[in-house]
């Protein structure tokens, strides 16, 4: 028999089929397990939910910290988690609700907590600073403005929802 008639030898054929069958078996065994493991990555994030935070009349032009409680479902563990926001009314009487999470490494910032910077948000971890609008002060560690909360006012009460990016360009009042 010539080489032309048999481009695949008996040995090669057996090798290929055994590798193929073995590969198929291994894949069908591993597929459910891998899908199982990567499930948290593929799971869709839950939609926005608004939570009542504070009566609008309490909001002033000075940023104040308000806390509220969210019922958090963490797989098989359910608990109440406290969240906070720095809320004030800007010069146009618009409500601004800033996330207290520093954009540098995630510590909690607070308003006027450093006597050297009375009109700024200050992060104690690495002295990150933000203007009142949430914009990061140049040449301090953070490289983005503090995030904003989505908000709506219902029946005179401020409701806060998801965190959104803050696109502010100016320092603010």
């Amino acid at each position: 028999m010539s080489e032309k008639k048999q481009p695949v030898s008996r040995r090669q054929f057996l090798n290929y089929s055994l590798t193929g069958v073995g590969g198929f078996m291994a894949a069908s065994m591993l597929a459910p397990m891998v899908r199982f493991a990567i499930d948290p990555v593929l799971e869709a994030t839950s939609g926005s939910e608004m939570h009542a935070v504070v009566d609008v009349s309490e909001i002033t032009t000075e940023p104040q910290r308000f806390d509220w409680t969210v019922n958090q479902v963490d797989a098989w563990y359910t608990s109440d988690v406290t969240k906070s926001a720095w809320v004030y009314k800007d010069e146009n009487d618009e409500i601004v609700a800033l996330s207290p999470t520093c954009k540098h490494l995630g510590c909690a910032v607070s308003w006027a907590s450093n006597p050297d910077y009375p009109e700024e948000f200050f992060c104690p971890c690495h002295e990150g600073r933000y203007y009142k609008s949430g914009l990061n002060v140049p040449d301090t560690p953070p490289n983005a403005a503090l995030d904003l909360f989505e908000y709506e006012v219902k029946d005179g009460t401020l409701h806060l929802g998801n965190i959104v990016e803050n696109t502010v360009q100016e320092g603010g009042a």
Partner: protein
Amino acid sequence: MLQKIYDWIDDRVDITPLWRDIADHEVPEHVNPAHHFSAFVYCFGGLTFFVTVIQILSGMFLTMYYVPDIENAWRSVYYLQTEVAHGQIVRGMHHWGASVVIVMLFLHTLRVFFQGAYKKPRELNWMVGVLLFFVMLALGLTGYLLPWDNKAYFATVVTLEIAEGVPVIGEMTKTLLNGDPSIVGAQTLARFFAIHVFFLPAALFVLMGIHFIMIRKQGISGPL
């Protein structure tokens, strides 16, 4: 491409003899079902190993969600089974595989017994096999408690009673397994988990290694 990578490595560390030694060995005619179909009885050892591999893999993946804590064990199992994609399949593999592995192990033992394959010079391998059998039973027993449902709990209560029935050291053995002289609870679950995922698998790997090295060294027993 793959060939080139292989050659590059083989050039430097000479890995070919390593895998050839494991993969290339003659299958005697009396063990080959293509020659005598009845030779299929020789497959049970390999099948036991195959199912053991499934058990190890599925078990590793299950611990990504499972927590060995009396408050959360059942809930985490329920969660991974109902909420996580393919959770039911992965847990099902581990659950049914546990039974299948015992069946395969038993068939393998029967074959070796009725063929007299345990006789000289393979007595040591038979002994190691018996130890492997005990380790497997212990794995099944400790794993049974982990879902922390009623069946698991009361089966373990009975198991511990049996352990207590051992003369002289019974009570000590029970407390050792239980983690507490009387309460079957938090400590029991944590202990059984540790035994199930660390201690017994470690023993299993060592014994399997010895089992396999010996069979390669001595070869499969001759035809009847």
